[in-house]
């Protein structure tokens, strides 16, 4: 019975990689400029979010809907002892009303009590900075996409969290009140 051999090999490889990550010098790791990205899908379209622009992600968090004139607002959620306004990333990117199920909340920063609801989370990836290019006019959705990342299988639009926060602020009238 050799069916268990790949699992054992995978386990050995996993253990070896884990150990190697600590054995290799840090300087060698920083030889190439990288960018950490979260890969998500919005209405089957691939998108990426820069990890450096968010403050964290949470899952399985209950969102309580509240009445609002902002259609992108799904409700509020309690995360790490704070109330956050949960907005639909798909609605903000112009895909229409938000979906029913929310798998993940992307926290937009400690200073902004905003979370983005994501339905399909594909993972955390570290890509080379050379893979990131400026987006052309067609790829910019409502002004929130300025870059794209080219991977082996697709070209993903990189969502700019600051632009989204600004967009949310414009939609909810917060920016007007500040002015």
């Amino acid at each position, binding site marked *: 019975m050799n069916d268990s051999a790949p699992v054992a090999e995978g386990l050995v490889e996993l253990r070896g990689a884990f150990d190697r990550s600590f054995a290799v010098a840090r300087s060698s790791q920083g030889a190439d400029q990288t960018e*950490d990205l979260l890969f998500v899908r919005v209405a089957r379209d691939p998108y990426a979010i820069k990890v450096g622009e968010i403050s964290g992600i949470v899952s399985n968090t209950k969102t309580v809907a509240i009445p609002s004139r902002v259609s992108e607002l799904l409700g509020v959620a309690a995360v790490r002892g704070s109330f956050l306004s949960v907005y639909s990333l798909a609605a903000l990117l112009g895909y229409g009303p938000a979906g029913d199920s929310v798998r993940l909340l992307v926290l937009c920063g400690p200073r902004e009590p905003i979370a983005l609801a994501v339905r399909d989370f594909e*993972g*955390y990836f570290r890509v080379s900075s050379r893979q990131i290019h400026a987006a052309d006019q067609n790829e910019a959705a409502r002004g929130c996409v300025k870059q794209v990342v080219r991977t082996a299988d697709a070209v993903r639009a990189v969502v700019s969290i600051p632009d989204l926060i600004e967009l949310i602020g414009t939609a909810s009238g917060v920016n007007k009140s500040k002015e």
Partner: protein
Amino acid sequence: MWTLGRKIAAGFTLSFVLLALIGVVAYRSVNTLSATSYKVAHTHEVLEHVANLLGLLKDAETGQRGYVITGDENFLEPYRTAVNGIDKVVKDLRQLTADNPNQQKRIEQSESLIAAKLAELKQTIEMRRKGAFEETAKVVRAGEGKKLMDDIRRLADEMDREERELLKQRAEEVETAANSARSTIIYGTLACLVLVTAAGVFITRSLGGQIGMAVRHVHSSSAELQSVANQQASGARESATAMSEISTTISELLATSRQIAESAQRVAHVAEETAVAARAGTRTVQETHESVSGIKRQVDLIVTHMLDLGKKSQQIGGILEIINELAEQTNILAINATIESAGAGEAGKRFAAVADEIRKLADRVGGSTKEIRTLIEEVRAAVNTTVMATEGGTKAVDLGARQFGQVTDALNQITALLGTTTEAAKEIELSTKQQSTAVEQVNMAISNVAKATKETEASSTQTLQTATELSSLSRDLTRLIQPTAAA
């Protein structure tokens, strides 16, 4: 329709009747003519007697006168002869005219006158003999004798006239009868000739028509008979050939029947051996049925285990979901740790490396759980397939068990049928032997029939010859009766 004999008989009867009629008429005419001739002769005889009587009286008177004149006795000779003959003549005349009252009356008158005349003659003769010539002449001159003689002549003339009247009348009767007979004979003969000719023509035509028709029928029938005889001869030849073939076939059939009898004997022997084998097969099938029942129990047990395995796989899947969830949570925690370590500056870099590795580990765990889920799904699918296959096997085993039961029943039935087959084969053997005997008899009968067929062929040939001769004869008859038609 009148028959041929009847027509001929009718023709001859008509001719006979006509001939008989003519004969009767002729006979009657001849009779009448004969009677009339006899009566004429009779009348002539009466006339002769009347003339004789008158002659005798004249002779007597002549003698009387001669004697009176001469006194010579020789002159009395006619007188004496006449006196002696007158009575007889008168008597004969009376007899001859017995059927005629007028003549009888005249004869009576004549007798008295004759007697008176003879008395006067005798008186004168006596007177002359006595020599009294004058007295005698005186008596003669007195004319008494003449008066008597005249009366006698008158009576004789009357008798003569009457007889001549009768003669004339009878001559007319004779003429009439002769004419009648002549007419009857002529016309009757002519009529008879016409009738006989007509009857002959009619009978000839009728006979010609009927016999011609009959001959044509005979000709046609003989032609048909010829054709039938031909067919019969041909059929007889074919029958003879067929009989020969049948005889050959029956001989082969006889050989086949013997082979069948031998085969039936072998079949009976084989059937007995087959019955023994079938009983052994029944026992084997029963043992196999028990084995199949054991297999069915084992298969049921396998199904139960496989169902348990399916349930365990589901439980593993549930556990794997938990592990996957944990891996995702770990991944999220690692991402958050990475983010937090990035926010911690230089101090957080080592932590970030750990968090990164934890995230990778969580990713690998997630990937592994996906692989395990896939494997588990495959296991579950395999289990389901196995369960379905096992259930199919169970059904097949059930079906096999049932079929083994049916096979057992069939073998039992085969065993029973083989007994029947054995008996039937023996009966077939016996029947085939009887059939062989019967076939031999049939063969003999066929041989006899073949002989009879050959004889029939010969007789058909003879019939054909006879029919041909009959046809030729009918043509000859037709030619004889109706030459134009035959031509």
